[in-house]
């Protein structure tokens, strides 16, 4: 490859990389600015990479909501209110300490950010916490923090205008079989 071709290839690669990384970073930063965003911390050093990690931003949710169509207007309205869905599941392999420690940190931050805790259950070494972010009487974010249950640590963050009573309608609208025990 001659010098000019090499320079062209380098400039193309660099600029393409910059665009792709900046697009991803821009979307991540955009989600972080939302009132309903929750920082889960990083448990990679304790448990390795998450077994399941889902990060759906506004654009992907918008496209996904198109699947519902006009058949279920109520579910469609719920979907349009959502801005992001995030999920991280770690296999804790019998050691919930790091997860519980992280949940403790997240809880402190959530309380400082005026989130409201609506569920707190501790039993047999397992913990479940549910928080909601209310702004002007509307729910703008919801998070579920679970540690120690079935050797898993589960972190869920749903961002946007949410009515928990209607979340189940979305589940029914997305008719996909998944292997999760009720």
């Amino acid at each position, binding site marked *: 490859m*001659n*010098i*000019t*071709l090499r*320079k*062209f290839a380098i*400039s*193309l690669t*660099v*600029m*393409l990389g910059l*665009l792709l990384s900046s*697009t991803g970073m821009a979307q991540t930063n955009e989600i972080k600015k939302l009132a309903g965003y929750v920082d889960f911390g990083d448990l990679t050093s304790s448990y390795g990479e998450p077994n*399941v990690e*889902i990060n*759906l931003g506004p*654009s*992907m*949710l918008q*496209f*996904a909501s*198109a*699947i519902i169509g006009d058949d279920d207007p109520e579910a469609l309205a719920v979907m349009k209110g959502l801005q992001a*869905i*995030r*999920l991280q*599941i770690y296999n804790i392999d019998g050691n919930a300490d790091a997860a519980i420690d992280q949940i403790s940190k997240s809880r402190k931050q959530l309380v400082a950010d005026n989130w409201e*805790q*609506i*569920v*707190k*259950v*501790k*039993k047999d070494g397992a913990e*479940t916490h*549910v928080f909601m972010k209310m702004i002007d009487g509307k729910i703008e974010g919801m998070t*579920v923090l*679970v540690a120690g*249950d079935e050797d898993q640590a*589960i972190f*869920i963050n*749903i961002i946007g205008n949410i009515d*928990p*009573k*209607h*979340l*189940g309608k*979305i*589940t029914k609208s*997305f008719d*996909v079989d*998944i292997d*999760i*025990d*009720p």
Partner: protein
Amino acid sequence: MKDHMSDIMNNKTKMSQQTFDDAIEELLAGDLDMQQAELLKQASASDQAMASAIIDAWALRKGLDELELESVPATLEARLLAIPSQFQARNNRFAWLNPASWQVGQSWAIGSALAMSLIIAIGINSQPNRAEILQAREDIQIALAYLGKSLNQADRVTRDELNQQMHKILAGQAPPRQHHRDIENPIKVENIDL
């Protein structure tokens, strides 16, 4: 010219064939002055080969002059003369696309411009494909399923604890508040329909 004649006059035997031919050509073209022509005449008088060569060349030249050549039409000549410039212009029209033709500074500038164009095109066409949308749909389902599972489990634990408390209270056993250490704000989860 004088060099050719000097070579001929001073060193006839070692004269190269090229010098010999050049001198004869100049003679026939009329480029030799009288003095030089006289020198060549003297040389040819003592050199049979030179004299023969001069005669042959003169005969060839005379034969060419007598040929009747048809002149090329002016329009055809103009078109023939224009071909090189047209060909060059057509080649140059897209020459800037060839990276090999770029100068050092141009290569970066044009390369960056093309890269930006490609990036913009990618950005415009960055809508997710069907597979990505279906994956997003499944991701939503998984996230909501885990949400429902977590909340239902919390609800179940809460109900179990409440039932145990109620049974113990009804049986007159442990004081009810002793077992509330593990459960705080348990009832609100019932409002969530998943």
